[in-house]
């Protein structure tokens, strides 16, 4: 009887431990973190502060993203070629800008207008990725006079294969 009780407790504890562990590993250290992936990322891409990559909106200097937006718009609207497909929704490309203004670790997320995951035709997504990677130098952002690494994202609003708007 004692053995059965001990066994039950051990099984219970191991299940409980397993659940706690699953919960702990469900999240990145910070939401939206992008770890290095040797299959897709450049191993030579260097970060100044790999453990504290900031968010794009963390900077209060005059060099805010809004000032950079016309340039981003001009690059995409000049380069993107509409694909005549009935595909509409949002495509987010999130990436890291390092302390030198270089970019890498591009990750793509897409949805339809019902906020459901969606796979866009590659002629749309590859094009967007190719254009975003063609921008070789991004804004360098500073904290306390030091250049920092940060996460940036762009959201592309697509209607019937046509690029309509760019956010944020």
């Amino acid at each position, binding site marked *: 009887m004692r053995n059965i009780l001990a066994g039950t407790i051990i099984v219970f504890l191991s299940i409980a431990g397993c659940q706690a562990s699953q*919960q*702990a590993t*469900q*999240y*990145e*250290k*910070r*939401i*939206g973190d992008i770890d290095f992936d040797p299959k897709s990322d450049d191993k030579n891409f260097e970060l100044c502060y790999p453990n504290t990559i900031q*968010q794009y*909106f963390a900077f209060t200097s*005059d060099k805010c993203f*809004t000032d950079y*937006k*016309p340039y981003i718009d001009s690059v995409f609207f000049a380069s993107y070629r509409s694909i005549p497909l009935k595909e509409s929704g*949002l495509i*987010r490309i*999130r990436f890291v800008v390092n302390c030198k203004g270089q970019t890498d670790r591009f990750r793509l*997320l897409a*949805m339809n*207008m019902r*906020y*459901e*995951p969606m796979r866009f035709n590659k002629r749309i997504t590859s094009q967007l990725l190719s254009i975003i990677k063609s921008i070789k130098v991004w804004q360098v952002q500073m904290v306390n006079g030091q250049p920092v690494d940060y*996460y940036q*994202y762009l*959201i592309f*609003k697509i209607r019937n294969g046509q690029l309509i*708007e760019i*956010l*944020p």
Partner: protein
Amino acid sequence: MKKTLIILLLLAGKLSAQPVCNAFLYMNDTLQYKACKLVEDIDEKYYQFSKEFQMLYDSALVICPYFSWGYREKSVAYLKSGDFITWKKLIDKAVLYDTLLNLGYRAWCRYEFFRDYEGAIADIDLLETKTPEIGWGINGNYHLTVTKAICYSELGQGAKAIDILSTYLQKAHPVGLYDYYQLGAIYFKNKDYTRSASAFRKQIEHHELAEAHSYLSLIYKKFHTDSLANQELQQARQLKAEGKKLRMVYTHHSNTIFF
């Protein structure tokens, strides 16, 4: 009356990014009270994006699965990182469990972060059936009626947008910082340059913006009064240099004119 008081208590908490837990006790809702207490000082301890922040809210939601504030707070980091899919799942739960508190917020986010004009209008329309005062977007830039007008304009329904916005402005108190600017920009899109200029002048009286002068410059050009157009453009550039321009933290204003 009791319901109004509770909403006020919750909204009072919202301004400081935290509900007042005692409001739940007042409603005899001990589960929400316990969940709320668990995360009471969380903003002082953990960053919104952190794993610890998310996990503590998860624990609160185990205590009270209908703790709408928990879903809403968990959604914020996803919103700010552009993860529309996870954000929507979480904010929908917040709306499900406390529609009045969260519907306007969801509407504003749909507009602000994802330019989901149809979705924002649908949420605002629904909210209007539930309360006579639908309130402002969370960053305080626009009343949700103004947000709705902007959305209609972006959908190409300029006349409807003008009707909503000008009717609102007749009795608005207070007028938002950028309301006349948006009215001017919508008139401009509709090619009604006289009314557009009038709205931009009101904007300048109310709260001077570089962009309002930039639009006026374009209007004077259309009327072939180049010297006035140049004056307005110079004024716009000077104000821009002084930092008197449209500002928004996470995204950009609709109808922003870059010059």
